[in-house]
């Protein structure tokens, strides 16, 4: 069986988190922050998503 190291780490974080409500609030805050920093609405209704490979100043 192939293990998934990322899933394993996430499981450990969830298990170790003292308060489930606090955990959900933290995840929600992280998702909102990600949206606010990467999503840019344009006047035509489309959405520009800010990306960035390491070393690229882009786009």
């Amino acid at each position, binding site marked *: 069986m192939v293990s998934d190291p990322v899933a394993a780490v996430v499981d450990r974080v969830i298990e170790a988190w003292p308060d489930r409500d606090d955990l959900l609030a933290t995840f929600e805050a992280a*998702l909102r922050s*990600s*949206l606010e920093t*990467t*999503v*840019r*609405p*344009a006047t*035509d*209704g*489309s*959405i*520009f*998503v*800010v*990306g960035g*490979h*390491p*070393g*690229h*100043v*882009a*786009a």
Partner: protein
Amino acid sequence: MWLRDSAAQVEPYLRFAVDDPQIHRMLAGVVRRHAAQIAIDPYANAFNESASGARVHEDRPVQGPWVWERKYELDSLCYPIRLAHRLWELTASVEHLDDAVHRMLASIVSVMRTEQRHEASSPYPLRALRRPPAAHRNAGPRRPRRAVRRDRHGVVGIPAER
């Protein structure tokens, strides 16, 4: 904005599109942007927010002002299809599948067919004048340079390491 990366960046929000009209609208907006970008250049994989002329390097033929990088990648064309499909699959909404998206799909299929027979029929050369970004050029340790010496016959040699 990378075609592939932007689709992956918003994918975690798909599950919320069912109940949240704002999230649904945001995801449909990303699909709309993909369609507009691919209409500009279906061989490009990353685009600027405006027609700024910014670019990662000079590609040949020289890319337009909207294009950050002109590099054909099969996955870059697959991800916009996947996002549009999953949005429909989860919400049953076809609102985002407008004429522009249909043109995007036709353009993607056309490019894929052409590149299956690249040597025979592709107009895409990928003769990029690639220079890695400065951050990449300077990254990582370098071996120290050793002096180059010529012997009396003019033959270049590198001194042995001690």
